[in-house]
């Protein structure tokens, strides 16, 4: 998380990614690259394959073809936990928190991959384990504070308001110290005020040097916060480029955005 910001070069390169579900081609030859320190938008109509792309990237599904190169080395056939260890953390479109754990514990789970205590350590609780445990707690509380849900630290995740759950999911992902943070529709279900808050949260996460891959339907948010955008349609890449250019792209407007939305965009 240090000198990465602004350093030239690509953090993630995707080449010819393909994924089929039976007869449905969820992704076909999708190629793109994400630069260090940018907020990279991923948009497209419902069923375009955005979530599928997240799932093959994070190892939840195995892709049929293509490669991901993350920070110079390929991610092929890694399990989800190995992907997380490499430095990619994600959130889920249909929030997947640990419902019966407290908000704080949810974030503490995120620290798992960066900490070491073993069963033996846990049972004997030597000084090293105790220090580590204290550090996990401290860092997790910091992160709760950072995303703005510290006041709900002791409440079960399932009792949090919708917007807070989305933020908590981001805190949990940040706890794994990702270099790439992949967010699947974080603004879904948020009102305008909450979305504005989310926007500044994204900006500050990027400011800390974490690259963001953002799936979002809220065009206003996408256009205001993303440096570049990839547009998917029926599992294929329709366009890629700076947000301002993509929203003027004829094909994008015709095939995806439509008249109403483009009007909306001009206002954004």
């Amino acid at each position, binding site marked *: 998380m240090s000198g990465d910001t602004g350093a030239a070069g690509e953090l993630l390169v995707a080449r010819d990614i393909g994924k089929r579900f039976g007869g449905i081609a969820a992704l076909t030859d999708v190629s793109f690259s994400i630069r260090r320190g940018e907020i990279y938008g991923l948009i497209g109509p419902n069923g375009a394959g955005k979530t599928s792309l997240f799932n093959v990237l994070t190892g*939840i599904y195995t892709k049929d073809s293509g490669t991901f190169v993350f920070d110079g080395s390929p991610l092929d056939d890694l399990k989800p936990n190995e992907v997380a260890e490499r430095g990619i953390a994600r959130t*889920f479109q249909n929030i997947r928190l*640990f419902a019966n754990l407290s908000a704080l514990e949810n974030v503490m*789970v*995120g620290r*798992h991959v960066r900490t070491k205590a073993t*069963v033996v*350590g846990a049972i004997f609780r030597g000084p090293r384990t105790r220090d*580590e445990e204290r550090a996990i707690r401290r860092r997790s509380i910091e992160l709760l504070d950072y995303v703005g849900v510290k006041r709900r630290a002791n409440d079960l995740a399932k009792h949090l308001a919708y917007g807070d759950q989305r933020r908590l999911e981001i805190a949990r992902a940040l706890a794994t110290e990702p270099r790439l943070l992949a967010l699947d529709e974080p603004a879904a279900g948020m009102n305008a005020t909450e979305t504005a808050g989310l926007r500044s949260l994204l900006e500050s996460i990027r400011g800390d040097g974490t690259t963001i891959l953002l799936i979002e339907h809220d065009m206003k948010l996408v256009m205001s916060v993303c440096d570049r955008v990839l547009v998917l349609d029926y599992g294929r890449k329709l366009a890629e480029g700076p947000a301002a250019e993509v929203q003027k792209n004829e094909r994008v407007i015709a095939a995806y955005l439509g008249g109403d939305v483009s009007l909306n965009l001009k206002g954004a």
Partner: protein
Amino acid sequence: MHAFFDTRGRPALVWAGLALVAAALIALPWVLAGIGTAWVRITNLAVLYCFLALGLNIVVGFAGLLDLGYIAFYGVGAYVYALLASPQFGIHLPFWVILPLGALLACIFGMLLGAPTLKLRGDYLAIVTLGFGEIVRIFLNNLSTPFNLTNGPQGITLIDPFRLDGFSFAGTQHVFGQALTSPIKYYYFLVIVLLLVIVVNVRLQNSRIGRAWEAIREDEVAARAMGINTRNMKLLAYAMGASFGGIAGGMFSAMQGFISPESFVLVESIMVLSMVVLGGMGNVFGVVVGALMLSYIPEVLRYTVGPAQMAVFGRTLIDPEVFRMLLFGLALVLMMLFRPAGIVPSALRKRELEQVPADVG
């Protein structure tokens, strides 16, 4: 649970409470022996069930994996002890050697069960674990030929009691004019081990490992995406749970002096599972309460159902043994109806979590 052992803030109160509990635990067997020696034995078995329930709680309560064959690990531990400390092979190793061996072998069996079931969930996991439990029992029943390992359904007799430096847990000694019977000696040993086991469980739960288990229980996909190696963590849960069962089995062997496959039947697995569910899955304290209740209720009924019928009707209308289990079943149903989340609700857990702001400052 943490608040229980956390003496910061109100040390005097906590120490007084602890002293009281300790005094009660020390006095208990003598009080029970006054009522009848059987009650000390019953208490010892109840403590063994606490071990089993706590072990199974790691698998079921923490990691959220169903296991209907858990009693197999108890059996493995019991047979390891029986074979290494009885005339069966003429081997007589000391208990402090065998108990860890039993735990180790049970742990290996735990992983043997865990490995093929890693991808299974729900119904499928239930069936496979149930089958595993039965396989172990059937092996114990049949490993008498061609080579007589387990002595088949006859079981193994004359198992050594615990011995430590000439001090035997069998027989009766007289201390200060009081009869220190074998069950009382085992009682003290068991209670000390139980306290250790409880501490181990609480520490596990409040650790990086315990949180990983709970994350898997809550949402396996999210747990993996957060970097938890779910395969290793599940295997670890099976292994830890099984080791507790193995140790309990060894102690059972020594206490009873006789074991046979009869003691490791499916009903026993279900009983231990009921203790976990009834007490409050995942809650260490609740599980102990559940185990004690389910151990005592049938015994209390055993001694009351018959006499009560005599008192009310003047004769025995229903066979006490049948009636007892009927009432026991009814008690289970009622408890689940009125306490669906377990006897001990999550209030304790809440208290533990409420410490956060104080810590943060």
